[in-house]
């Protein structure tokens, strides 16, 4: 196993945590350890967690820290190799053939210029400049998951017309999943794993203060308390960190325009709960929750 102790000057989980904080991402020790190990061991990093806990943000922050471009591959039901790997540009091949054919010349139609790179191929070809994010892998089919297995273990793909393409260095790959279904054991095994949970109140508070602009500490604390309460309710969609940040911002905005505090929170409830049934469910208790949060 090829182990690198330092990557772009980062030699320990703590250094990575500091670097991530500089990139406006607050990682806890578990996450920074997992991310550091993934980088050091050259394994993909699998992040799982409820929607809105900052999985994709983590990937963006890691790419920022490494100073690499993020290639994002959004998975969906029915995603296949042509949208993930590469495709030949048939119209251009045709044109080139017609043009050369007219002069009786010979043309190699499998040159780079006819190859349309998709994220996975781009990542293999330029591993030092890119971070590949395979987002919401639980949405893809089992076939695609099996196809990923091959890619993630060898970091190699083969194009029939060109032969295998192999990364000269293990690329940084981050996978995220909302856990709407369980991933295959073989895929989990190849990755360094981290489950991102909802943050502790103190950490969420720091995140809001860092991410939201012009939110007072009091408002942030109230939002954290109220969101914490909401997460204990049996809602269809629990509010994530992004929602908490937006709520703090929205309520602050309304407050600046003259709405009083509990009213500002209540009127901006739509940025936290985005489901009619949830709103109906919480309506009778929202005043009590807000009062408790304000205290």
């Amino acid at each position, binding site marked *: *196993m090829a*182990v690198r*102790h330092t990557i772009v000057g980062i030699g*320990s*989980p703590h250094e990575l945590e500091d670097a991530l904080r500089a990139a406006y991402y607050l990682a806890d*020790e*578990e996450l920074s*350890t*997992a991310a*550091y*190990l*993934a980088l*050091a*061991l050259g*394994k993909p990093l*699998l992040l*799982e967690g409820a929607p809105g806990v900052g999985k994709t943000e983590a990937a963006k922050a890691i790419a920022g820290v490494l100073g690499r471009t993020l290639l994002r591959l959004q998975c969906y039901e029915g995603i296949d190799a042509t949208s993930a790997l590469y495709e030949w540009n*048939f*119209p251009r091949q*045709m044109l080139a*053939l017609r043009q050369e054919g007219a002069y009786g010349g010979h043309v190699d139609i499998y040159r780079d210029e006819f190859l349309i790179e998709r994220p996975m191929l781009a990542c293999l070809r330029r591993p030092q400049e890119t971070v590949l994010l395979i987002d919401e892998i639980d949405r893809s089919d089992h076939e695609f998951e099996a196809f990923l297995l091959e890619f993630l273990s060898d970091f190699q793909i083969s194009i029939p017309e060109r032969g295998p393409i192999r990364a000269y260095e293990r690329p940084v790959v981050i996978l995220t999943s909302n*856990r709407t*279904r*369980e991933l295959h*054991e073989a895929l*989990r*095994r*190849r*990755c*360094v*794993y*981290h*489950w991102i*949970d909802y943050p502790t109140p103190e950490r969420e508070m720091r995140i809001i203060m860092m991410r939201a602009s012009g939110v007072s500490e009091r408002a942030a604390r109230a939002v954290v308390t109220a969101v914490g309460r909401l997460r204990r309710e049996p809602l*269809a969609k629990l509010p994530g960190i992004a929602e908490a940040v937006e709520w703090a911002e929205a309520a602050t905005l309304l407050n600046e325009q003259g709405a009083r505090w509990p009213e500002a929170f209540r009127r901006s409830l739509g940025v936290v709960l985005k489901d009619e*049934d949830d709103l109906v469910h919480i309506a009778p208790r929202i005043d009590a929750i807000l009062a408790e949060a304000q205290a």
Partner: protein
Amino acid sequence: MTDTARPITLFLAFTALLRRAGFAVAPEQTVAWLASIELLGPRSIDDIRRAAHATIGPPPERFAEFDALFDAHFLGAIVPGSEGEPSEEQPPRAAEDSSIGPEPLFGEETRESGAKATTAERLSARRFAPGDEGETLRRFARALPARLPRRRGYRWRSARTGPGTDARRMFRDALRHAGEFISLRHRQRRLRQRRIVVLIDVSGSMKERTQAHLAFAHALVRAADAVEVFTIGTRLTRISRPLRLRSREQALANASLVVADWDGGTRIGDALNAFLAVPRFAALARGAAIVVLSDGLERGDPSVMADAVARFARLAWKIIWLTPLAADPAFEARTAGLVAARPYLDKLADGGSIDSICANVLDMARERAA
């Protein structure tokens, strides 16, 4: 070499312990773990623990168990009641599910139609029950994918024959072959699996069977794509999400934590109406195959139940009612609720044993709705 040997055996013993406890640990994960420990220093026991979390990656719902094993192994703490959880393959030991209480093993009640079962039969059923159960469900899960109810979807797929030509595919192929159209492609509607909605009666009268029904629901959820499971009793609870876990024991334990009205009264009509009143749930029933596991002993107003079943029948593709009472060949719908609801059901059949439930569900796609 010799001075490093001891810690390594200590770590390897831990992975062996994990495997015995039913965690899947591959050799490459062990190697990655050892490499990580070296990478991190390790400065403290927490480094070793975090490295284990990251490289071995226990599923989140088993974190507590994982940490308890870790503490027991490395810190010498005492593990609360774990002498190796059985893995999925082993026959499940009931009575471990705390919240269900001292319920009999599942399968125990198989083939006892009413009070006629003799003691001898009862004993033999008891002896064979647990293994039988798991085996039946495994066979069911294997047979299911081919026999799921399906409907025509909205998306097209390319095919050799079909009602229309697949122009897009043909042009794409033509580009590949220097602009020549070589073959005629057709397209067909893609088949999609119909959603299956399972309603499990958890009232007192079904007490003996709920455990087996949950095990069946778990097998169904694991084997098919779109399955929703609800329990009905005095209220309605959605348990599709907890049942999605791979390990049956874990899934059943989680599901039983969610349900609050075990062994209560029966107000099936009200529970069904509650289901239909939530638009999101009612949408689940549209075009779905609905399986009700209940004896239909309604304490509330039978006409409410009949109306609710009628509304279900109009929404759903098919609705089958499996009652344990029908295990008796001389069975007829006699309770007021079931008599009133009978005309709207596509099928009222035996749900007395896991075998018959599985058989009825497998047959669902074959017989067209009457």
